[in-house]
């Protein structure tokens, strides 16, 4: 609430009462002197009450530290009155960074009795784009009953809040690759393994677990036989993100960084939500390393790492893949997300071949940086870019690699949702 009017009353009272006091003393009019005296007593009491009201009030915030863009976020506050007096008209200001407004003003009108706590919740929205924002500080404000004096207290409760990019399901990536797991999984293959899916019965071999002896078959055949189960497969998804600073282009929502982060987030979320083990690698200003893991918590961690990346790296995407290629498990899916279409196609072919030879299924997504507003270098002529895109598509087709090329003029949500995303460039 604006303080101007209360300050105006206070200044007026100082002036008017001072004038009345002077007049009373100089003219020897006791009533005027008493008026000034009474008025100043009132101001003194009001100032003391305002300070006293603030002294023993505390507030604390409790908010889940992350959300997606446009999500509604409930923010809980607990207002403690540690004094013995009842509190009224307590104004609280919070600063929720991801919201449009700089500050959120809240009012607890009271009465909040002494030695009591009241829990309050306000709901706001993450209206700003993805990133790390600050929440806080909190400011408590009280005043005397006449509103003449305000007392404020800043509570240094500043916490980071992560806003993740909105994620859309990527329809094009199938359950392409998987690796064996020790834990029972939904996906199995008809090879001997440890799944709960029954495969058959075979002769007992030394070292077999006695608990797996199939007693009916053993009795029928007169020789020990054991049960065999299918092997479990865990879908395994590795994402290599190109954070080379040479591929920066565009600004704000139409920039290569924006596209790379959004596409990465969608890929990670889609893969994680269907149960994949997800791993992310990148080399920006600092290394982007999300070790393999599954589940929502892991995906959240991956998103948290993704929103902190900067396109300030010096390592090319193909070098990055080269460094980590040997650690990508056979049978898994590896997605190469590049910020440019101008990759060295000969080297790309070599990399794709190396991955395929290890049983890894590569997927390539190229973001055409030359379709964005150029920042520090000229955009390549359209004809040259089109020729490169054609060459890349030919390479994908020849190697049987799912690939997609995305440009600034395409709607990312619609493109990623297309079932034929990876066939379009063929």
């Amino acid at each position, binding site marked *: 609430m604006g303080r101007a009017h209360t300050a105006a009353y206070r200044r007026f009272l100082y002036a008017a009462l001072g004038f009345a006091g002077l007049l009373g003393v100089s003219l020897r009019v006791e009533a005027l002197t008493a008026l000034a005296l009474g008025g100043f007593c009132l101001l003194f009491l009001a100032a003391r009450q305002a300070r006293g009201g603030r002294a023993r009030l505390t507030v604390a915030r409790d908010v889940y530290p992350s959300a997606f863009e446009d999500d509604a976020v409930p923010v809980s506050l607990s207002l403690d009155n540690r004094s013995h007096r009842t509190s009224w008209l307590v104004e609280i200001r919070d600063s929720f960074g991801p919201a449009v407004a700089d500050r959120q003003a809240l009012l607890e009108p009271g009465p909040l009795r002494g030695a009591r706590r009241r829990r*309050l919740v306000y709901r706001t929205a993450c209206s700003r784009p993805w990133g790390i924002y600050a929440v806080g500080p909190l400011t408590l404000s009280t005043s005397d009953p006449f509103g003449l004096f305000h007392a404020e207290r800043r509570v240094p409760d500043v916490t980071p809040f992560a806003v993740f990019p909105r994620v859309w399901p990527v329809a094009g990536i199938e359950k392409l690759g998987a690796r064996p797991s020790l834990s029972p999984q939904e996906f199995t293959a008809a090879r001997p393994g440890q799944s709960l899916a029954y495969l058959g019965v075979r002769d007992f071999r030394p070292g077999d677990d006695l608990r797996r002896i199939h007693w009916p078959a053993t009795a029928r055949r007169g020789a020990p036989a054991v049960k065999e189960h299918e092997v479990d497969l865990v879908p395994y998804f590795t994402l290599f993100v190109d954070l080379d600073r040479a591929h920066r282009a565009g600004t704000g929502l139409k920039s290569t960084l924006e596209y790379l982060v959004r596409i990465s987030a969608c890929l990670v979320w889609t893969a994680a939500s269907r149960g994949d083990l997800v791993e992310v690698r990148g080399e920006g200003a600092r290394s982007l390393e999300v070790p393999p893991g599954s589940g929502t918590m892991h995906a959240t961690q991956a998103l948290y790492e993704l929103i902190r990346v900067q396109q300030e790296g010096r390592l090319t995407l193909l070098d990055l893949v080269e460094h980590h290629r040997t650690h990508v498990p056979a049978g898994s899916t590896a997605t190469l997300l590049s910020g440019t279409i101008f990759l060295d196609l000969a080297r790309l072919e070599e990399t794709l071949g190396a991955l395929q030879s290890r049983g890894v299924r590569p997927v390539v997504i190229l973001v055409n940086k030359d379709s964005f507003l150029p920042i520090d270098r000229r955009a390549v002529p359209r004809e040259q870019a089109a020729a490169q895109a054609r060459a890349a598509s030919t390479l994908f087709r020849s190697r049987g690699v799912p690939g997609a090329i995305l440009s600034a003029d395409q709607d990312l949500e619609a493109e990623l949702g297309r079932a034929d995303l990876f066939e379009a460039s063929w």
Partner: protein
Amino acid sequence: MSTRGRGGDGVSPILAARSVALYALSLHAAASALLAWTAGDMRTLGLAAVALALALIIGESLGGMIGAGLEGTSRLRLRVTVAAAYGGLVILALTAAVGTGEARLLGQEALLFTVLQAAFLLLVDLGRTHLGPVANALVLVVLASLRGGVVASAAVTGGLALLGFFLALDHAARVLQAYPAGHARLLGGTLRRAAVSLAPVVLGLTVLFVLSPPAPLARVRFPAAAAGQRDEEVAAAYQRLIVLALAGSGLVFGVVRLLRRDRGARSPLEEAMPLEHGAEEALPEVPPLAQRDYRGRRGRIVRAYVDVLARAREAGFRSRPSQTPRDIAALLPAPAAPLAAITDLFVGARYGPDEPSEEQAVAAERAGRAVAAGLGHKNRV
């Protein structure tokens, strides 16, 4: 949790009560001045009561229309011009009254400022504050004070009390108007708080006036025929005034509550949020800080650090058990150098193998005092 936004139905009775307080203040001040310096018959008082009530009702109901037609700069210019002209008029009137000491002139001034009071009430919604009618009411109280006796006592005591009630209701109304509408029931609480705060001042003034009745301005010359009213007549006039004030207040309360619908303005950078309120719960008892027996210089350093933490807690800083001293130092809004010094000394004294030196103990105590003094003065977070 229930959603209890503010304003709306909650603010409506407070707005109406504020109008009543303003009306009562205006009527009390005007009647006191009129009783002091004019015949103060029932007809004059009745006329003043009706005129002030009508002016306030019209001002509260239609004042927004006048304000809506004025731009911000025009409004400011108008306010400054009116304030300057009014200030000049007050100075002139008081100088003339005090200088001449003519009771008749004071009577005319009382009448003039009563009319001005009605005018201010008519334009009550024009400014951001209700400073105009409040200032004019105080001028009327000052005029009544010059008369001395019961009139002056009643004018000063009642004026101050009614001013306090008006300010309290005005404050509550403005705060509630600045937030989303809801059903806050604050009228009773606001009146109680104001009454409790005003009681010592009003009682003190009453006792003072009973023990030492105020004398009139010495240089006032009363006409021989009308040497002023006797105290009994003034008391009877005040009794009649109470009846008039009650009737007028009822009218003002009803009409303003029926007609007034507005909300406060807020900076576009700030968003007033509706709140969901949980039930009030008792605060858990804060366990006292564990009193470990640290002796010697080690103990002095640890105690200095614990004192800093206690001071930080008083200032609203909450540390979690998982936070290390260095985590706390990174978050504490205090001068950096002494904070780093006491943190280092504490870590050494609390966890280090060696007994600290006397210099270190003294340095820790000095740094602790510096941090405690500077807590909250530097926003470092």
